[in-house]
């Protein structure tokens, strides 16, 4: 990406985050391992004592990075597997499945927790059980199953990937079955469809606070490589830039953040407004805005089944 924050700018940002009380950093991209000074960044993060997750495409991991990660407080490294080899490589490119599996093995040898993320689509739905079995054999710690959401370039693939209602039901049934078959694999599903009994939802409901959105919850935001701060990782809302403002000022004063934090479930419209889960879910406000031009419109990709 053009105009990325320099190493010094990142170090300054990390110091700001440290004194704001930020405890965990999720390092993602694009592809973070393409950054030539990533090792220096990781060293700084380790020295400052942050907890880290690393989200990588899994094709560039080597012993150097793994060695550094193994000396950090790392929650997990997330590697994508979009299904079994054919479906994975349809999305990610030829030869990438085996490279991802090799990366998983490398991480597990270093005793680093691994989470595999799978985008659940029309293509990958029937792969999930076999995939879960493979992951158990690789000693993967958790599997995150996230429904395909048509945003960005994904909008061109909506017809091929987006689950219809019957497929959402099938996904829910598969999710429940996989959890029962592989208790040693912590399977986490797109929470929209599994509201009953989900611990996080139950706790959020006690406070009538949305569990879905990090910024509505008040505990998350994203900082882009060029310093843009956004409340959302699906759609970039420009809340500020760390090159021109302090992170503390952006977090506290940005009108964009205030709009999200001021979210009032009573103002929800359409199916979200009528939904019994509107307080603890509330749907995706970013997608509501993207598709309907209205922050309080219904979530166009509601995943409840």
């Amino acid at each position, binding site marked *: 990406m053009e105009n990325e924050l320099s190493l010094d700018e990142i170090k300054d940002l990390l110091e700001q985050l440290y*004194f704001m009380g930020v*405890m*965990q950093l999720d390092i993602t991209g694009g592809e973070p391992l393409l950054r030539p000074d990533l090792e220096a960044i990781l060293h700084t993060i380790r020295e400052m004592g942050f*907890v880290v997750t690393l989200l990588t495409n899994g094709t560039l991991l080597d012993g150097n990075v793994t060695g550094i990660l193994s000396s950090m407080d790392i*929650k997990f490294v997330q590697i994508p597997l979009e299904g079994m080899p054919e479906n994975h490589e349809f999305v990610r490119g030829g030869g990438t499945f085996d490279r991802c599996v090799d990366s998983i093995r490398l991480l597990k040898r270093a005793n680093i927790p691994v989470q595999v993320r799978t985008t659940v689509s029309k293509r990958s739905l029937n792969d999930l059980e076999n995939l879960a079995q493979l992951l158990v054999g690789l000693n993967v710690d958790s599997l995150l199953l996230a429904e395909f959401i048509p945003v960005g370039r994904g909008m061109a693939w909506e017809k091929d990937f987006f689950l219809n209602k019957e497929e959402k039901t099938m996904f829910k049934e598969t999710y429940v079955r996989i959890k029962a078959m592989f208790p040693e694999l912590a399977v986490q599903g797109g929470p929209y469809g599994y509201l009953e009994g989900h611990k996080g939802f139950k706790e959020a409901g006690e406070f009538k606070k949305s569990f879905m959105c990090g910024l509505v919850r008040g505990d998350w935001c994203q900082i882009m490589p060029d310093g843009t701060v956004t409340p959302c990782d699906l759609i970039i809302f420009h809340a500020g830039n760390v090159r021109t403002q302090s992170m503390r000022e952006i977090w506290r004063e940005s009108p964009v953040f205030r709009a999200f934090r001021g979210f009032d479930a009573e103002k929800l419209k359409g199916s979200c407004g009528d939904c019994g889960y509107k307080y603890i879910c509330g749907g995706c406000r970013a997608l509501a805005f993207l598709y309907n031009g209205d922050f309080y419109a219904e979530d166009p990709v509601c995943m409840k089944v």
Partner: protein
Amino acid sequence: MEVFVKKEKLKCRDLGSVLLIYDYANGVVVELNESARFVWDCLDNSNVKDVIQKFSDHYGVDINIASEDVYSVLNELEAKGIINRKAVLKQCTNLITNLIM
């Protein structure tokens, strides 16, 4: 003798006025003010009775008030899964001696 044990894999951040404790396996953060932090720091190598006495001595408060304050902190930390209560070890030396006799 009642003992609480700190969970493993916790990340602590000293920000001067507060101590942040992050249980990153479960995504739970707690913020301790000065007095709660005192209790936290005393937990290492101390049973609850000792912690209460130290709290009472440090803050100059009645032992009953100290007990309430200390248990308030411990109960909240336990509820959040940050600490675990170990089995109470009752001193029953005399009872065992009597049974043997």
